[in-house]
């Protein structure tokens, strides 16, 4: 009871990275709250997953193994999760802000009448005083996220409803092994007990899942462009520099929305969070929602013809100039100097 819980998402038979990241964060929160860490894994043919999950500090694994739970559809997963949450009453519930988590989370929160905060960039434990009622709440989950298009950062709390639910994007939290010998109790859940016959209304008739070809999260070098790069063609210049440096191309939301690059390349709160060795920001002014996704890069180089661009404040190097002039020079002098 009153534990920290994490919904573990399966991606074509493997536990998603974001779930491990959330377990790591969940473990820290559980230690602070002096409670247990629970993992919820729903799918089919789930033998042996406890061995993978235990080292991340999972104390109890609730495993629902049923053919109806794979592949994922909304209603059966909702029913099992809502049923288990009503019995176990976790105080915190975390899930990935993935296509699955963002489909399941709100449905579950509505069924439980619980608050849900999307796309948190930080989770902390803190207290709150309700001044009008002179009521003090201890050990609340602070759900911190950029808001309003990323121009401000808001701390959200759920004082009265449990669980306190939050989704977090992949890459925001760090995946850390807690204890290789951690003991994990497995509870096998009879999913059928929770299903309603109306849960099977949506039928999957076709499914094509492709391995994502683009993975900027683990790239040591990222050359990133903003809307100011101007076009798909101009982004080719960034691709050339990235290839040369053994890196990947990233982009701001505006550049993705404009169709200059693929959505998978979006860096920021609603995209991917990255921590490369070098982040080269080309014509990026630096909205908070973008900075939130790249500020932990080891070295930040900003190329901008606006000397006052907000991103320059967090950059190690600021190159004052136009992207189309500077990038070719970087290509040229990298080649010359690395010979």
């Amino acid at each position, binding site marked *: 009871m009153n534990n920290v819980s994490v919904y573990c998402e399966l991606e074509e038979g493997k536990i998603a990275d974001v779930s491990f990241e959330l377990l790591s964060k969940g473990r820290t929160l559980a230690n602070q709250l002096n409670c247990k860490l629970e993992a919820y894994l729903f799918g089919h043919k789930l033998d042996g997953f406890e061995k993978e999950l235990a080292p991340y500090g999972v104390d109890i694994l609730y495993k629902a193994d049923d053919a109806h739970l794979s592949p994922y559809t909304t209603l059966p997963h909702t029913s099992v999760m809502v049923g288990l949450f009503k019995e176990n009453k976790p105080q915190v519930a975390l899930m990935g802000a993935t296509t699955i988590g963002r489909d399941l989370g709100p449905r579950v929160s509505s069924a439980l009448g619980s608050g849900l905060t999307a796309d948190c960039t930080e989770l902390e434990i803190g207290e709150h005083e309700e001044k009008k009622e002179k009521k003090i709440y201890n050990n609340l989950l602070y759900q911190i996220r950029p808001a309003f298009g990323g121009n401000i950062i808001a701390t959200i709390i759920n004082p009265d409803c449990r669980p306190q639910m939050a989704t977090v994007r992949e890459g925001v939290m760090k995946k850390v092994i807690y204890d290789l010998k951690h003991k994990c109790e497995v509870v096998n859940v009879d999913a059928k007990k929770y299903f309603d016959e109306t849960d099977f209304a949506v039928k999957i008739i076709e499914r094509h*899942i492709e391995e994502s070809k683009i993975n900027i999260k683990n790239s040591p070098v990222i050359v990133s462009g903003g809307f100011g790069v101007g076009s798909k063609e101009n982004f080719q210049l960034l691709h050339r520099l990235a290839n040369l440096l053994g890196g990947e191309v990233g982009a701001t939301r505006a550049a993705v929305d404009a169709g200059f690059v693929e959505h998978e390349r979006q860096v920021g709160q609603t995209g991917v969070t990255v921590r490369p060795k070098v982040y080269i920001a080309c014509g990026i002014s630096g909205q908070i929602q973008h900075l939130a996704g790249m500020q932990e890069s080891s070295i930040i180089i900003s190329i901008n013809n606006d000397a006052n661009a907000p991103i320059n404040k967090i950059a190690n190097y600021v190159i004052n100039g136009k992207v189309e002039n500077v990038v070719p020079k970087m290509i040229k002098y990298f080649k010359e100097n690395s010979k």
Partner: protein
Amino acid sequence: MNAFKIIVLAKQVPDTRNVGKDAMKADGTVNRAVLPAIFNPEDLHALEQALRIKDQFPESIITLLTMGPVRAAEILREGFYRGADDGILLTDRAFAGSDTLATSYSLSCAIKKIKDFDIIICGRQAIDGDTAQVGPQVAEKLHIPQITYCEEIQAIDKKKITVKRRLERGVEVVECALPVLITVNNSAPHCRPRNAKRLMKFKHATTMSKHQETGGDYLATENANTHLSIKEWGISNIDCEHVQLGLAGSPTKVKKVDNIVFQSKESKRIDDFDEDISLLMKELIDSHIIG
């Protein structure tokens, strides 16, 4: 012949995509006045999906439902110009401060009042919050299935609907019996432009309170041109529990709002002269940062 009753949920949002430097006031709060209010982009995608069903089955009726302040009637007019048949503005002070759950509850009460529907379509998320929660929460409150991330409605008849969904790593085609709620992805087709004839017809469409405010003979307008009146519902028009509305009905509270302050670094500033960039690249290579 088939005809469908479609409800499209839409939100008027500040255009956060075009936030300029004057968007923040000196005290760090958001200067809403300088941000234009627009039809949430993905809700327009949702309207387009509804219009495509109507293209195929012209007897279908599209009702646009929005919750917001009185000026949100603007997006209902925008919807009329593009082909929506009916518009309802859900507006009341009691809704102020709603989080996604309280919003979903209010919308679901309005939908229960509309009562007769086959499909609810809305955008995946709104650009001012990006939560993507209201669609699924409305579906849950109405106890109907949801299909999220719709890119295309491939087929529809009275028995079932077939939808292509765009997922992070692929696509899925699903089918489901009606009624159902569908959220439309940003990869779905853009909405058709305004129709000039409809624009002329509906440009004066407005709510009763606006008619009264402008001192017009609203009763005469109402009787003569029913299409010129946008339905305006407050809490007295829907069957709802007041404790579930607005701030009181919102489990999430904003504890505080901060201006983000990033740790400033000592940046090395250089110009785009050849020798400077050559030196920089050399420095980066020599310190094994790149190369």
